[in-house]
């Protein structure tokens, strides 16, 4: 009865790549050459770059790092060139360059750029890192909100709007109650209300998810701008002067040199971000809830046939995701700036969407991508203060340039949840 079927020479399926894929190696090589010519050979010999390693109010002051500009840049360029060469070698042997090497390349290249940019001047490394972390907070929460929704099969373009209403609600509630934690609670509620509309139209009425998302963003911008002009501005004293969240230093951890104060002397929102990434990762990949959510996002019919309520799962996840994004919005007002200003989210919601894709729909990846965007943005502002040889308009392109390179070159083909964007209608 049983017939031997497989394992015959004819049967071998094989992958034919007539040419090695050289996209990544060429990118790395071009960047290395730029680094060598512009940063290494382009800097004058004998100059130094100074990088501060402590905040001014730190108890233990570390002496700043003073580097020979030309020497450091040349050394880093050589490392970059070596990685590029290895990448070529790997490509010709049809192997992929490991991810950590790509990351190392990125760090070395950016550091070379930084050292070259502050040639003859000084900047604070810890300030740069802390600024990156803070700028990454709303992006990361927005991306987590996106992960919640898209893993269940709903595209959440409305992250931008959810951040904005979160920021608004946090500012107003914290001002009125004079309690910053009340503001922190109000932000996710506001995000959730916007999410309610998103779920109603996309899940219940199966309207195109992109269109609903865009419309909700416009609604959020219009509503908050109107309320700002009509209500907040005339009553700024009572309605738009929220207290700010105070940084909390975590004992022991915050006294680690360099990274301690950067990571562990922050507000509760930042700690919430650390917690969220851990909890969300475990929940998504290790629990019953996560398995069901992923099934709903990948193959809703399959989920339905084993008795999982597809649309109920989507409702729940859209509300969770919108609340998460709304919570992140609180950072803009009570975590950073204080008062609410119109359109203060400034496109961070869209960057969060890109971060989610760059992070391949995982919480950890999203956080990494958010940090990358945060760093690029912070670097631009740090450099514009210093007055570097690069025109500021070019520098402002940097975060977006980074997105294109990262998505096109380093991530390769990304595959999101198969059913994202497709409404589930039974029968």
């Amino acid at each position, binding site marked *: 009865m049983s*017939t031997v079927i497989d394992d015959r020479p004819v*049967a071998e399926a094989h992958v034919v790549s007539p040419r090695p894929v050289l996209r990544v190696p060429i990118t790395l090589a071009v960047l290395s050459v730029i680094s060598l010519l512009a940063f290494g050979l382009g800097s004058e010999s004998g100059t130094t770059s100074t990088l501060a390693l402590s905040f001014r109010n730190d108890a233990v002051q570390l002496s700043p790092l003073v580097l020979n500009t030309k020497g450091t840049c040349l050394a880093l360029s050589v490392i970059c060139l070596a990685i590029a060469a290895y990448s070529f070698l790997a490509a010709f042997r049809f192997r992929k360059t490991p991810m950590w090497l790509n990351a190392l390349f990125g760090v070395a290249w950016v550091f070379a750029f930084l050292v070259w940019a502050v040639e003859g001047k000084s900047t604070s490394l810890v300030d740069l890192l802390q600024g990156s972390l803070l700028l990454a907070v709303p992006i990361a929460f927005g991306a987590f909100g996106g992960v919640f929704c898209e893993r269940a099969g709903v595209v959440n373009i409305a992250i931008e709007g959810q951040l904005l209403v979160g920021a608004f609600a946090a500012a107003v509630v914290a001002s009125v109650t004079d309690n910053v934690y009340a503001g922190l609670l109000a932000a996710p509620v506001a995000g959730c209300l916007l999410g309610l509309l998103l779920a109603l139209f996309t899940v219940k009425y199966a309207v195109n998810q992109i269109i609903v998302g865009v419309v909700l963003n416009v609604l959020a911008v219009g509503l908050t701008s109107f309320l700002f002009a009509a209500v907040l501005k005339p009553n700024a004293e009572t309605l738009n002067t929220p207290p700010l969240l105070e940084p909390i230093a975590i004992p022991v951890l915050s006294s680690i040199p360099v990274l301690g104060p950067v990571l562990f002397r922050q507000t509760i929102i930042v700690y919430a971000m650390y917690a969220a990434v851990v909890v969300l990762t475990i929940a998504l990949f290790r629990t019953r809830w996560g398995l069901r959510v992923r099934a709903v996002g990948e*193959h809703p019919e*399959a989920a339905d046939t*084993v008795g999982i309520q597809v649309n109920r799962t989507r409702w729940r996840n859209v509300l969770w995701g919108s609340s998460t994004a709304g919570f992140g919005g609180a950072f803009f007002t009570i975590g950073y700036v204080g008062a609410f200003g119109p359109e203060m989210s400034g496109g961070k919601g869209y960057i969060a969407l890109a971060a989610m894709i760059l992070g391949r729909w995982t919480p950890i990846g999203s956080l990494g991508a958010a940090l990358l965007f945060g760093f690029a943005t912070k670097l631009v502002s740090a450099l514009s203060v210093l007055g570097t040889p690069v025109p500021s308009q070019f520098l402002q392109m940097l975060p977006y340039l980074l997105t294109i390179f990262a998505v096109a070159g380093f991530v390769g083909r990304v595959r999101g949840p198969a059913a994202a964007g497709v409404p589930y209608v039974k029968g």
Partner: protein
Amino acid sequence: MLLELRGITKRFGPLVANDHIDLVIEPGQIHALLGENGAGKSTLMNVLFGLYEPDEGQIAVDGTPVTFRGPSDALAAGIGMVHQHFMLVPVFTVAESVMLGHESTRGVMLDLDAARAQVRELSARFGFDVDPDARIEDLPVGVQQRVEIIKAMARDAKVLILDEPTAVLTPQETDELIEIMRQLAAAGTSIVFITHKLREVRAVADVITVIRRGAVVGSAAPTADESELAAMMVGRAVLLDLDKAPAQPGATVLSVRDLLVLDRAGTTVVDEVSFDLARGEILAIAGVQGNGQSELAETILGLLPPVAGSIVLEGTELVGKSVREILDHGVGFVPEDRSHDGLVGEFSVAENLVLDLIFDPRFRKPFGVDIAAVQANAQQRIGEYDIRTQGPGQPAGRLSGGNQQKVVVARELSRPLRLFVASQPTRGVDVGSIEFLHRRIVQERDTGTPVIIVSTELDEVSALADRIAVMYRGKIVGMVPGDTPRDVLGLMMAGVPLDEARRQAAENPTTETILKEGDL
């Protein structure tokens, strides 16, 4: 468990998909539900599985009426279903797929070890070789089907519904499935086996219920002969065997050499394929779905660019030409997915009949389309092909599968051709139309056109082919005469070379052959 369906009626708007259907499924019985595509078999099973709510009638388990509000109720009652399109998440592992919906947990965490153990245990009990940690998308369809069966058995299904389970299998895999079905039935599981394939029904069923146009038209014993069953299924006598005259091959006009086609991921889909084809000859390309046949056909039409190789038709190289140029060179093409690639559903029948012919001088006036000529053409084709339509103005998407396919074939054959390529010409088409389309294709051959038929149905291959090329993983395993036995073809479809296939087929005849040669 005794399962009864009493007077089940399900309507979709004016269409009555199930009309007062009564069905009794006894414990441990293999109950075949035989009917054509669109007869209402799948609708009935979706009602039974709780996916649809019946408009009338009731379901009873061991004599007690029950109501299923959703699949979870049906699952709880002990009904499992293996859908025609597998309900598996491609990126999940086997263990994750099996546990989904009734997960065992340790605290809040998933207990994957328990799921793995369960997969191993069930896999050993039925002699499946399934790795609990394999990803679904990496598994061949035959194994995916076993995962579906494990999924149902892991929930202690007392009744297992198999919806067209053999559509994606080779004859040998089908045989193994039949063995599994017998084993399950012997262990007390009732099986509802939905199919339109007469051979399989006779091989495995204890009871046969025939459904036509949503109603039960009768039941039959497995000893009933095929033409009797076919007549019940279609409602009139059907000629199962197409008697065609032997081919009279003329000059060789098509030669394909070393054709190499890659998909977007860089995987070889057509692997150095070469063959020749003469005028007045039908070459059938057989193989299990997804072994490069569809891509080969699409490459001939110019839809896919080959990496290497050549396709020469009457002295002209087709590789590198646009689809328009290839059509103009006289290639007629019937695509695999007619509703998606063959027709524009919103367009009228008349428009669809000239879809790729609007540059033809017959249908052109100096400044546009000759609407009168298009209408006249439609009237003529509708008569010639017996297309059942309300008129030439009816949207083609509203026609039945068989009539849609007639529109496509009529269009492609309505001009002189140098080559006719048809992918799955009768997939999802009723038996009556199959008969007609097959006759029409043979007629085209007899006018001297070389014909390539791509088909996964061995019945169709055997009925039409003068020569058969069997493809497996992008290669042609062998080129054999049209009368090659099914067992040999089946083995070749699994990648076994010709000589080896002949030897194995002689040693291990499949149930089908035994049935055919036996004394039933």
